[in-house]
């Protein structure tokens, strides 16, 4: 029942398989289960939206895939190769799975261009001029022309997000991990960001693992919504978004969009109420 097109436009690598993952934290001696036997199968090239109330553990899952934490039990595979599992609890962070952070992690002391060129420059496989040529080209493609020599602190936050995404794409990652990147933006900028992201996606098909609590954002962008329960998190309901790509903002007012929204909303509200009553602190 996948809504992914089965043609040559889809990438062959970047499939993530999360198998029965458990993550238990131990802050100050009180064992807290953040992720509870979570299993998710993400095919290559899918935009998978992880939706859930704040603090339920979605970021923990993302961090485990990225390699910032280890897991307590279970396995995570990237294209049938094991990322982490028993015996190797913590994955290595790497440029095949790049994270776009909530508050943005562009290096404020480097210009936008230098930021974008950072990954390949560290890898050292291409020459400096090759890297910078590619970087400039990608910036023009993403509509960032003219901001090359500015510092991140000098441009708008929407623009910063785009720079960060281009920075990630320079490394031709298999997976992009988004941790509520547009949370702090106003809704007008957000819509622009969404369309920009989709445009970038259509040109560079990668697997996208996107955490959000904004249902509209989730349905607009995603192939699939995975609605998580409140802490400890595990998939509660999967909603297929069978609206065809390429999408634009007119999708937002289509009847099918409304239907999917209603279907998802019931579940999300239920979990949100549970989280509220449990006094969950923002993750």
């Amino acid at each position, binding site marked *: 029942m996948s809504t992914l097109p089965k043609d040559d436009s889809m990438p062959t690598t970047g499939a993530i398989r999360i198998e029965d993952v458990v993550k238990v934290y131990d802050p100050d001696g009180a064992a807290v289960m953040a992720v509870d036997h979570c299993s998710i199968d993400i095919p290559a090239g899918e935009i998978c939206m992880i939706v859930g109330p704040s603090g339920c553990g979605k970021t923990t899952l993302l961090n485990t895939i*990225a*390699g*910032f934490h280890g897991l307590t039990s279970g396995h995570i595979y990237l294209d049938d190769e094991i990322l982490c599992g028993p015996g190797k609890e913590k994955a290595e*962070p*790497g*440029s095949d*799975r*790049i*994270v776009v*952070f909530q*508050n943005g*992690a562009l*290096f*404020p*002391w*480097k210009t936008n261009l230098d930021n974008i060129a*950072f*990954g390949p420059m*560290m*890898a050292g496989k291409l020459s400096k001029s090759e890297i910078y040529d590619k970087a400039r080209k990608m910036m023009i493609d993403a509509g960032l022309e003219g901001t090359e*020599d500015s*510092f991140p*602190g*000098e441009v708008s936050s929407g623009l910063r997000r785009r720079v960060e995404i281009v*920075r*990630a794409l320079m*490394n031709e990652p298999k997976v992009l991990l988004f941790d509520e990147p547009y949370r702090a933006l106003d809704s007008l900028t957000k819509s622009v960001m969404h369309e920009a992201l989709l445009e970038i996606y259509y040109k560079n098909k990668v697997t996208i693992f996107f955490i959000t609590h904004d249902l509209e954002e989730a349905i607009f962008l995603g192939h699939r919504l995975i609605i998580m329960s409140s802490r400890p998190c595990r998939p509660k309901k999967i909603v297929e978004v069978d609206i065809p790509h390429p999408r634009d903002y007119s999708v937002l007012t289509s009847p099918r969009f409304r239907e999917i929204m209603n279907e998802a909303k019931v579940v999300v509200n239920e979990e949100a109420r549970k989280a509220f009553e449990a006094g969950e602190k923002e993750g």
Partner: protein
Amino acid sequence: MSQSNTTMNLTMYRISSWLKSPKPYLMFIGFGCVLSFWYFSVEVWKLPRFQDMPALTEVFTEWFSEDPYYGLSVYTPEYYKHIGISLRRIAYAFFLATALGVPLGLFLGWSQKLREYIFPLFELFRPIPVLAWVPLAIIIFSGSETPVIFLTFLASFFATTLNTMLGVESIDEEYSRAAYCLGASRWQTFVHVVVPGAMPFIFTGLQISIGVAWFSLVAGEMVSGQYGLGYIINTAYIMVQYSQIVIGMITLGIIGYTTSAMVRVAGDYMMQWRVRELALSGD
């Protein structure tokens, strides 16, 4: 470059708006109050406590006279000789302390292991007031210059190392995580994230460090030096040439302030990104 023009324009704008505000006038009122209090209490009202204090007119005529009564004024070469000697000592001590303290602080902040070994030892020495080292310094180092420079170095060193270390600790973890994601090695992350990220804190530390350096230098010069501003003040007291004391103090104030400002300007120059970022936030 258009960016440096913008910085220049911003500075000009700031200066002109400062001149238009009440600030400069209030400032002069403040100076006026202090100076008139000094003048009146010593020369006009001749308050009992202030009897032996050098008078404002006495100090300033002495300071600016071509043939000073006691020997030091802006026209005498000895004056500049003493200033130069103090400055030279500060330069040796400060630069040595920076050259040793910044790398040490960076490594202590970066490597948990190193910190566990070295920080306790460091913290054992830090509470000992720098001046308590005077006798030991005299015993260990021959000559009269080296102990003074050593003391000044010590004070600077502790301040710089500590602030640098705290600076590294304060860097948002997401920056290093982003670097790892993009494929940077630990060492590359250290060079491209930790060092630039800690810069603002390093420079704040350096400003503290130079203040502390002057503090120790003056004390050292008063106790065991020959020449130098501290020496002038002490000698002037012993030889009952009280106006010289004040000249020494004022000179110290001016030079101390200037060196501190030089550190701050150096910091601004090295951290263009921060200056622009702060300017845009309307600071």
